[in-house]
């Protein structure tokens, strides 16, 4: 119900004062750089002095030049694969854990909740390095053989076929806490009456979940998907820690995040000269990919309250 606006309420001009500091930081350090990066994609050269307009040149080069193309599509594909694994493992397991945690018969709920969230408080870098050690066969090989678990002693991170999956799973281990907690909060928000009604109608736990609870938490599911999507396309720390910036072994774990860093900022190995225009082009493409994913997802899952 709209409140009565009377004459003692100041007009917009007054409020702008309050908004100024926020707008200042936000526009200068976020909005404008984002938009300007879009513009930069059309230029080449690294500093304003050496810049020259080359239209879509960067984009053309990105998709036609042999090395650029394989790198880009490689990173792109890897990032989608990474995202897929994260979606399935992290979010589905998160949902499962949330359901378990909100089950009233569950004991020790507080403890589990706390524990689940611990990895999320660590820096991604820390978990990356930690798992690098854990997955290193040199370290635990002998002991594992002694424990008859010899098959576990493989160079998980050094092997092209397993490296990306491992990195993705490490990322899941880390971030599992967030979807779990969000789902728990969402599940808790479902009014009791709905659940009771389903119970009275004779629905069992499985049906109650799929037909009553799940539709009601759909906005949260959507939000989590979006957040996972956006974060995966930016994932950098985990690869940086477990492999290196080049996405070893032989670019098998290269993600858009690392590609962007290499090209736009640090420079392609082994030369080390960044190409800012190209990097901006990559960033722009990423931006549009994100938009293309986020907007439909939002429309689909958010409902008017």
């Amino acid at each position: 119900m709209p409140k009565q606006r009377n004459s003692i309420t100041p007009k917009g001009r007054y409020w702008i004062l309050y908004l100024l500091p926020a707008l200042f930081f936000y526009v200068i350090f976020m909005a404008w750089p984002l938009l300007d990066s879009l513009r930069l994609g059309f230029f080449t050269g690294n500093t304003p002095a050496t810049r020259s307009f080359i239209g879509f040149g960067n984009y053309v080069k990105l998709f036609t030049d042999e090395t650029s193309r394989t790198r880009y599509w490689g990173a792109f594909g890897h990032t989608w694969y990474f995202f897929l694994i994260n979606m399935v493992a992290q979010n589905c397991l998160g949902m499962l854990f949330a359901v378990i945690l909100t089950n009233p018969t569950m004991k020790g709920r507080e403890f589990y909740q706390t524990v689940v969230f611990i990895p999320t408080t660590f820096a991604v870098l820390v978990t990356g390095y930690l798992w690098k050690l854990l997955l290193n066969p040199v370290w635990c090989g002998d002991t594992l053989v002694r424990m008859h678990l010899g098959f576990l002693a493989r160079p998980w991170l050094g092997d092209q076929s397993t490296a990306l999956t491992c990195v993705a799973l490490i990322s899941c281990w880390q971030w599992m806490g967030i979807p779990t907690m969000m789902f728990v909060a969402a599940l808790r928000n479902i009014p009791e009456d709905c659940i009771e009604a389903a119970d009275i109608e004779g629905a069992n736990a499985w049906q109650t979940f799929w037909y009553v609870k799940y539709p009601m938490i759909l906005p949260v599911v959507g939000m989590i998907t979006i957040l996972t999507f956006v974060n995966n396309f930016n994932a950098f720390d985990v690869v940086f820690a477990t492999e290196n910036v080049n996405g070893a072994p032989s670019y098998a774990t290269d993600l858009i995040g690392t590609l962007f860093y290499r090209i736009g900022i640090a420079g392609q190995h082994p030369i080390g000269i960044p190409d800012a225009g190209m990097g901006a082009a990559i960033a722009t493409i990423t931006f549009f990919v994100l938009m293309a994913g986020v907007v439909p997802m939002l429309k689909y899952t958010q409902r008017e309250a």
Partner: protein
Amino acid sequence: MVIWCCIVLFPIWVLLINSFKTRLTIYTNPFWIPRRWNFDNYRSVLREGDFLTYFKNSLIVVLLSLLLVLIISSFAAFALSNWRGKTSHGLYLFFIAGMMLPIKIASIKLLELVRSLGLLNTIWSLVPIYIAMGLPIGVFVLTEFFREVPHELTEAAIIDGSTYFRVFVTIMLPLVRPALATVAIYNLIPFWNDLWFPLIFINEESQKTLLLGVTRLFGQYQTDWSKVLAVLTLSAIPVLVLYLSMSKQFIKGVTAGAVKG
């Protein structure tokens, strides 16, 4: 569930116990407690100086950024919650859009910007970026909270002759303290654990933040895993301790971003 807990705790356990071992014993005895507890790793890491500098830098950056985010976003949220109108709503959406878009994409331009401001290689380059990062969620959460406060309170104060600003400071702010805590906590983790921006902005040793320092120490102690683990433990401890002591608050803070109460 129990299995998962084990999966979570096992690596952490390994991290901790191994950081107390000497270099070679971690290879012969990886999974169990050390036969001889060894604090040398921690001692040398702390003594070889730089670790404390990195810690100090991170502390300054994070505290300053958090403080400024809270102040600036509460101002903005106060305005947005009181000012009904198309422009106001538009601005609100403008800020929230920032929650979805990762600021990393704009890094190239940001690098240039920081360079031209002369802030490259200092910890001060990080503060405005983190503020810009933290504003969307701050505005989002705080506006919701401000809207909850009944308008009558404000009106009563105005009628009594107070200015809006005084209303803001003396009435509103204390009322939204839980929301302020939520925003602070939500932003604490990304600010403290951020590697990306320090990585591209800072090369100067004395200005590095904790995480960035960890990468250097990792390279330095390349094969000395027990030292590395000591470093990792030390860097994870601050947030972990905070988390364990305020776990409920933490969780509420993090989930505030997605679930409207």
